[in-house]
């Protein structure tokens, strides 16, 4: 009986090693098309996520505005296009982690603290952002904000002339009403006033390559789940 149990355990271990090898041997974006790999990655990544990622991104993966940790269940991505490859790069090298390959082209300047914009100007910009999101806003202030957007602070340099952001820079899309640090007017004000310089640690060296690949595939799967895509909302 003991021998049988040992053989069974060894078989399971070998199968696992085989799937792990396949998980890494495939190109990152190709793994999402293999249901066996997806199932395996999800089973491996859930406890990893709970241990390493949930403290910032939340146990339900919906993010944490206080920390600026994004919601991972939606289809809006600060960096990249939400592909397994791009998610994996972010996990490998982090955001402003101090590593040379980290995502760190720019960050949101502290326009208010630096005295580059006055209090009134920032409030006007907030109204413009609310307008971009299709939310209730003050029309006159929003017009002033629009002029500022294309004026001296030149928000379009990073956020684009169409305000749709730039995933190469990590500049968010301002038109989809998805805000990592909170979308209420006060939070928007604080973002412009204090700037945002969120960091995500680099996990290469802390987690194995298999674990990182599994996490990337897991996050990709959750964010692209059919239920969410059909209903237009994240899967619970």
């Amino acid at each position, binding site marked *: 009986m003991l021998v049988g149990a040992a053989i069974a355990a060894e078989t399971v271990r070998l199968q696992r090693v085989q799937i792990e090898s396949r998980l*890494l041997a495939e190109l990152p974006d190709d793994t999402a098309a293999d249901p066996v790999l997806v199932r395996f990655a999800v089973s491996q990544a859930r406890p990893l996520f709970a241990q390493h990622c949930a403290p910032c991104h939340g146990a339900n993966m919906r993010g944490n505005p206080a920390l600026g940790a994004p919601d991972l269940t939606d289809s809006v991505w600060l960096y990249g296009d939400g592909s397994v490859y791009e998610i994996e790069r972010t996990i490998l090298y982090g955001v402003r982690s101090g590593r040379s390959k980290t995502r760190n082209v720019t960050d949101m300047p502290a326009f208010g603290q630096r005295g580059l914009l006055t209090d009134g100007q920032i409030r006007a910009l907030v109204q413009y952002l609310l307008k971009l999101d299709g939310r209730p806003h003050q029309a006159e202030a929003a017009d002033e904000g629009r002029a500022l957007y294309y004026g001296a602070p030149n928000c379009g340099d990073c956020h684009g002339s169409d305000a749709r952001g730039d995933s190469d820079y990590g500049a968010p899309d301002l038109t989809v009403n998805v805000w990592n640090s909170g979308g209420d007017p006060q939070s928007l004000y604080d973002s412009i006033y204090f700037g945002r310089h969120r960091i995500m640690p680099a996990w290469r060296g802390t987690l194995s390559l298999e674990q990182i690949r599994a996490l990337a595939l897991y996050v990709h799967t959750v964010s692209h789940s059919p239920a969410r895509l059909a209903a237009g909302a994240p899967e619970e």
Partner: protein
Amino acid sequence: MPPPIIATERRLTSELIRTLTRRPQRSWALPACSVALGLIAAACGLFRPAVRPVSAVPPGYVALVNQKGILMSDFIAQTQTETSTSFADTTPAERDRVLHEMIDEELLVQRGLVLDLPETTTEVRDTMASAVNAQVEAPLLAIAPTDAQLHAFYDAHRAKYTTGGTMTVHDLVLHVGGYENADQSVAQAETDAADAVYQLRSGASIDYVMEHFGFVDSGRVDNTEELDFAAQLHLGAKLYAVASELSDGEISDPIVDSDGVHVLVMDQRRPPRIADFPTARNQVYSDYRDAENRRAREENLRILRSEATILLAPGESE
């Protein structure tokens, strides 16, 4: 027939073993087990497993260079950067070229380590030190200062936030012992200069004073508006110290300098002033961040020093 003494010894040994084991038929088994265990323990202590070089590229890597892997993800990123297209759209030739370059780079890095470049090359040392400092400073980026902290920093470093002053000044000099004043002493020149100052303060013009008292323009300043630091350079410390205290239209007392007795006539004076917080806050923000980064670097060095064994040669200090 063995000698009695030997037979006795045999019996004693057997009894000893029997006493220890209580099972006479195990008298050979136990020593054999002991030897076998001893050999296993010796093998563990005397040998270690050899590190077998990896003969196949592990999954997740695109190449191994002297057992050091090049990550598939890095290869994809590099290819996309160099070709400005997505990886799937790159040609095999483009991928081959990028991989070739990455392997060359890895070989050069490994060669640099073998040559101990961090020891011998200043640029490598500087880059390594900067990279370590970048890692130390990275976590601070997420900690945005509050306005109160910025204000406190500004208050503690006010003197840094001064705007530059300017002045428009005439520097008149009465040379002592020159051709026309061959017998004139310094004291006499000072007396003459005092008279000239009185006249100027009474409304006389500079030209009048120059004509009647023998003053000339020193040539140190060009009588236009100058920034304070430039005026200091031109006038010299002694004259600048006096000029910086004059206000618009004021005339200085005579000042004895190396080339004669000077009188300064201030046309316009805009003294330096400390910028208020709203004006200076951009600079204050940058300086605050720099100060925090510097503190983090110093703390890191303090920790490194506390863990290091540093010996100085006799007579050396730091």
